[in-house]
């Protein structure tokens, strides 16, 4: 085995065996995100699932019956009819039976319809706790939907009685059909749907890149600082191994862990976001927004170079820290501000920004993976190649400085004082 592999393997092994790190990197995203997603989903499902409706009818005409039947027939609605002589009694019953919605059909319901007056149905949402009100409001909207359908049906009946040929066209003289024109294709999906899918992509990708960059940077800095803290650095630097090999093995070791972590975050985040996007049921491919193998390769290269840049920068910074904790502080205070502008791209199109802001963002290497993803979607490979050139140059510079600083004695003696100074008494 070459020196590089021996060192890189040790690096990975140390990282894998670091329980804290492993927990934060892999266990948390794989458990927390899906759990969060499940909770959200559960909330939505219970809200969207069966709506239990209690109905009390004081009406003795035919239309009260019709309404009850319409509600019973509506999907996801179970109806319980109760007998009560007063509104208060009905509300109490519904409350005791832990029901959420009480529909009251008043006495003059059928009379009003037959007399061509507006008939009223009272819908009571019953709150059992002062927690979130999602269930109640959704149930109410569903009742309203049923009542809308019913009132339409009644209107059609009345129009038929008036001998109107096409009651549907009479009721809805105008209808909107929405489609989307995206990437020069017409897609049979409403703009709100498409923008929903795009938004979820726009939010999740910067988040993953941000997490990956900051986490791997912390890991690399930690790997260097741990050598100082555990007093293994001096031994390491006197081994018969090229200093560049030491730097390269540390970077690759953490990069491997970083990719595993990124994967974990991606899987976690996907199942989290999945709980939202399955609703829309539209994938990017269906929108004509798939990524070709070329695009995929270029995107992967951009991500790789961004990580190399972040890792080598973190290693340089870690040289100035005495222990893991101060390394984390130094790295956070440099990498976080650099990674933050990536979030601006969550909400904005870089081309809509003024030139100065645009070049400012482009100078920040951490915005490139996000841009690259968009370019990959739209097939702008030329722009991706430009990104690659820029990132390569930047990575080479930081790698060079990392190798330089590891070949000098600065790696042992450089330190920024963090308040207190330690020195052995002479």
């Amino acid at each position, binding site marked *: 085995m070459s020196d590089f592999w021996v*060192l890189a393997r040790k690096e990975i092994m140390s990282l894998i065996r670091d329980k804290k790190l492993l927990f934060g990197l892999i266990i948390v995203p794989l458990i927390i995100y899906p759990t969060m997603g499940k909770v959200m989903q559960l909330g939505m499902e219970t809200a969207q699932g069966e709506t239990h409706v209690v109905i009390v009818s004081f009406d003795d005409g035919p239309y009260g019956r019709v309404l009850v039947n319409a509600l019973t027939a509506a999907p996801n609605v179970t109806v319980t009819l109760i007998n009560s002589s007063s509104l208060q009694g009905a509300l109490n019953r519904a409350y005791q039976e832990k029901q959420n919605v009480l529909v009251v059909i008043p006495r003059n319901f059928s009379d009003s319809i037959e007399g061509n007056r507006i008939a009223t149905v009272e819908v009571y949402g019953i709150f059992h706790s002062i927690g979130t009100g999602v269930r109640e409001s959704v149930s109410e909207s569903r009742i309203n939907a049923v009542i809308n359908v019913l009132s339409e049906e009644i209107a059609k009946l009345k129009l038929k009685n008036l001998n109107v040929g096409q009651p549907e066209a009479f009721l809805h003289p105008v209808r909107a059909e929405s489609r989307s024109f995206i990437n020069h294709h017409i897609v049979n999906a409403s703009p709100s749907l498409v923008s929903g899918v795009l938004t979820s992509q726009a939010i999740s990708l910067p988040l993953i890149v941000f997490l990956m960059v900051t986490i791997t940077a912390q890991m690399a800095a930690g790997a260097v600082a741990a050598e100082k803290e*555990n*007093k293994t650095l001096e*031994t390491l630097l*006197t*081994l018969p191994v090229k200093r560049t090999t030491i730097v390269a093995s540390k970077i690759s070791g953490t990069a491997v862990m970083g990719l595993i972590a990124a994967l974990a975050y991606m899987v976690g985040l996907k199942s989290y976001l999945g709980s939202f996007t399955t609703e829309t049921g539209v994938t990017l491919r269906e929108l004509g927004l798939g990524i070709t193998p070329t695009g995929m390769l270029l995107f992967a290269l951009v991500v790789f170079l961004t990580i190399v840049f972040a890792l080598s920068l973190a290693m340089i910074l870690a040289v100035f820290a005495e222990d893991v904790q101060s390394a984390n502080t130094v790295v956070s205070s440099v990498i976080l501000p650099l990674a933050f502008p990536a979030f601006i791209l969550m909400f904005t199109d870089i081309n809509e920004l003024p030139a100065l802001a645009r070049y400012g963002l482009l100078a920040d290497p951490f915005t490139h993976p996000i841009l690259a993803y968009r370019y990959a979607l739209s097939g702008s490979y030329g722009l991706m190649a430009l990104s690659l050139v820029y990132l390569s140059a930047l990575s080479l510079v930081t790698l060079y400085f990392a190798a330089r600083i590891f070949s000098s004695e600065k790696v042992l003696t450089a330190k920024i004082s963090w308040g207190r100074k330690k020195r052995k008494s002479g």
Partner: protein
Amino acid sequence: MTVVKVEELEKEYGKVRALRGISFEIKEGEIFGLIGPNGAGKSTTLKILATLLKPTGGRAEVFGHDVVREAEEVRALISYLPEEAGAYKNLTGIEYLRFMARLYAKDEEKAAGMVELGKKISDLGNRLNDKVATYSKGMTRKLLLARALMVMPRLAILDEPASGLDIVNAYTIRKTIKRFAREEGTTFLVSSHNMLEVEFLCDRVALINSGKIIEIGTPEELKEGYHAENLEEVFMRAVEPAGGEES
């Protein structure tokens, strides 16, 4: 053959002058001791020879290789035990030895041989299968010493090798070092505070104080020169007139 050649070596840490021009030579197979009070510049000298620090003046050679310009060649010939050192906490003792052996050995067979030797020197038995994080200070020191010796360096640079070890372990280690010098012809440069250790171990000794070498000679020569019964007295007499720190 001259293994180490140090000429007018100087080192400044900012304003602190740690070494003010020291010179000495070490012959092959010798156990050379560097002794002196705290802050005298022992560790600084050893770090320069181990290619960790760069001198601000003078020069140092190991087997004819300049420690600054030919650092890589030097590193291939030496093994260095820092004054304060640890091993990778997440590895077990045996994994640590294997890791180190692979970096020194050309092939697996040689590496296995080194690990066997390391096991013997460390004398940690079954505890080698435990994580280094669970070791006591002395156990870690033994592991690190084993690592430094098992790779069969041409020159071993040991900064206070027996620090933190109990009497029995310190004794065993000294025996091992002596045996290595006799049987393998390994050259040793050790620093120490323990005069008993130095007297027992070293063929020649350099007395260093405030970054300057005051005396060089065999323990016998030094004792004679200072009319002292043991090295401790030599040490005290040599240091006294200097009056501690000069400016």
